[in-house]
């Protein structure tokens, strides 16, 4: 097991009380596996990523849990150890490639800088290695692109460069937070294919954060569905998408216009996400759930196997 997160809870201090952004999250990622984390804004998917990377803001506190990376707890490491992990062991790709790149530094130099740091190579060799890594993300004329500035490249090209940067060390885990959300669908398709290929060739695990269930279906073997800072369902992607158990997962799929009959209204979820400062005692989705029982308001359901024989599909719901 490459990454093993147990009972992780994170809070943010605010003037109106503490925002409980993550509540007892547990999941793991195996070596070479692509795991999708899906949820809407405020579900805690990005906070999970930032916590693993040690990049939480100062007002955040980790109130419980552990994050084991290759058996070592990231949360008890000091700053230097965490820094050594970031980039070298765990690569990152974020939504907006322009913010991840240095705006006034040529692509080749940016890559060389990263490679020098992680692989301890002299500049010239690092620059050559950078050009090689551009070729590996299928940039046709890597020498030419290396001499360009980020603003001279298209969004899709920039994201390829960011992926080349993230994979340069090369890391064992890649955390990708909405890496294709800002891109056109045809470019998205190419970037997804590229990430899949890199993962297959190098055995890199990918934690793929997205709001797009279609992207999950295409990319991920397993999916974790988050809602209001909790994991409500997880399992094999095709299982979860075709036989969703948690009412939230079902509602999320039902709200998509993809398969909807244009003559019928979309199945919108009533109500709003709960206030994360005052979490309900019971199920976090109960107030919006059509099937909620009295028990759902009182007691929080744990993440349990959907069927006794099936140890790969879990849901946190009292209604079965």
């Amino acid at each position, binding site marked *: 097991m490459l990454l093993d997160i147990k009972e992780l809870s994170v809070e943010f201090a605010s003037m109106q009380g503490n925002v409980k952004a993550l509540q007892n999250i547990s999941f793991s990622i195996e070596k070479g596996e692509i795991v999708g984390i899906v949820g*809407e*804004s405020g579900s805690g998917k990005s906070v999970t990523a930032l916590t693993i990377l040690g990049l939480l803001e100062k007002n955040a506190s980790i109130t419980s849990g552990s994050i084991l990376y290759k058996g070592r707890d990231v949360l008890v490491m000091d700053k230097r150890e965490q820094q050594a992990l970031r980039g070298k062991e765990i690569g990152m790709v974020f939504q907006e490639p322009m913010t991840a790149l240095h705006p006034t530094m040529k692509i080749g130099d940016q890559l060389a800088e990263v490679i020098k740091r992680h692989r301890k190579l002299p500049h010239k060799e690092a620059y050559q290695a950078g050009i090689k890594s551009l070729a590996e993300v299928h940039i046709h004329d890597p020498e030419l692109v290396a001499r360009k500035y980020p603003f001279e490249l298209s*969004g899709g090209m920039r994201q390829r460069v960011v992926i080349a940067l993230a994979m340069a060390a090369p890391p064992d885990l890649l955390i990708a937070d909405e890496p294709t959300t800002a891109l*056109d*669908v*045809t*470019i*998205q*398709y190419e970037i*997804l294919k590229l990430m899949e290929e890199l993962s297959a060739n190098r055995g890199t695990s990918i934690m793929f954060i997205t*709001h*797009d*269930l*279609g*992207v999950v*279906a*295409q990319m991920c073997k397993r999916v974790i569905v988050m809602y209001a800072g909790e994991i409500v369902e997880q399992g094999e992607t*095709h299982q979860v*998408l*075709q036989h969703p158990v948690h009412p939230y997962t079902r*509602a*999320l*799929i039902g*709200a*998509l*216009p*993809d*398969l*909807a009959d*244009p003559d019928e*209204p*979309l*199945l*919108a*979820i009533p109500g*709003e996400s709960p206030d994360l400062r005052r979490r309900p005692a019971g199920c976090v989705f109960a107030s919006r759930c059509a099937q909620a029982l009295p028990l759902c308001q009182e007691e929080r359901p744990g993440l349990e196997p959907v069927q006794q024989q099936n140890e790969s599909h879990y849901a946190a719901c009292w209604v079965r």
Partner: protein
Amino acid sequence: MLGEVIRVKPIIELIEVQKEYGSGTGRIQAVSQASFSIRQGETFGLIGESGSGKSTLAKIVTGLEHPTAGSILYDGKPLWTGKQFNRIQPGDMQIVFQDPQSSLDPRMRVKDIILEPLHALPSQARKEKGSEERLHALIARVGLKPDHLSRFPHEFSGGQRQRIAIARALITDPAFVILDEPTSALDVSVQAHVLNLLKELKRERKLTYLFISHNMSVIRYMCDRMAVMYKGKIVEMGTVSDIFDNPAQAYTKTLLSSLPSLHQKKVEPHV
């Protein structure tokens, strides 16, 4: 739907519209030879990727950019004479933008935001359309509460902000509304509410929509007919079911097959 094919009057008609930016060697054709018409009461979808020219077309239709060639007829009358925009009846055409965060003035109260388009109207019409009852009925219809009126945009979620933007567009009783990526910045469950609302409003108020989006599923769900834009040109046009079932152009096929679908795993694009 089929019955309506019998000659419904177009509300807007674009005839070989062209837009060039720059001059000399730096010239860029943002839109070339775009022709289509939108019939009264239909939702016409315009789909394309970034740089395809779909937003430029929206700007030309709303009077923000002049076309360099071609003509646009609104209700049979030309919208542009050269660089001069012939203002139609004020408030008859409205627009809802993608990002309600930036399309609502952060320092205006919701009530003033919604009523602002009425300033373009003659005082008599302004008084009638801006009456308290009409305003309250409208905000109730889009799903806002009376006490929201005195608040500022930052106090609302993305979905609520888009409801404010929709109310602002409808206060003038428009016949034609341009929806430029109205749900692209919203979460899926919020998008469902807004799309449902837009469909209901269209039915109740007999609106005509030009729906601009890069999202094929949203276009399929919302529109009657559609045009596919690629590099400034309309490459395919037809009813939504025709284009989704039998895409003729290679680009449309690529677009359709690049769309990650929930149930088909890994489809190779046709290109």
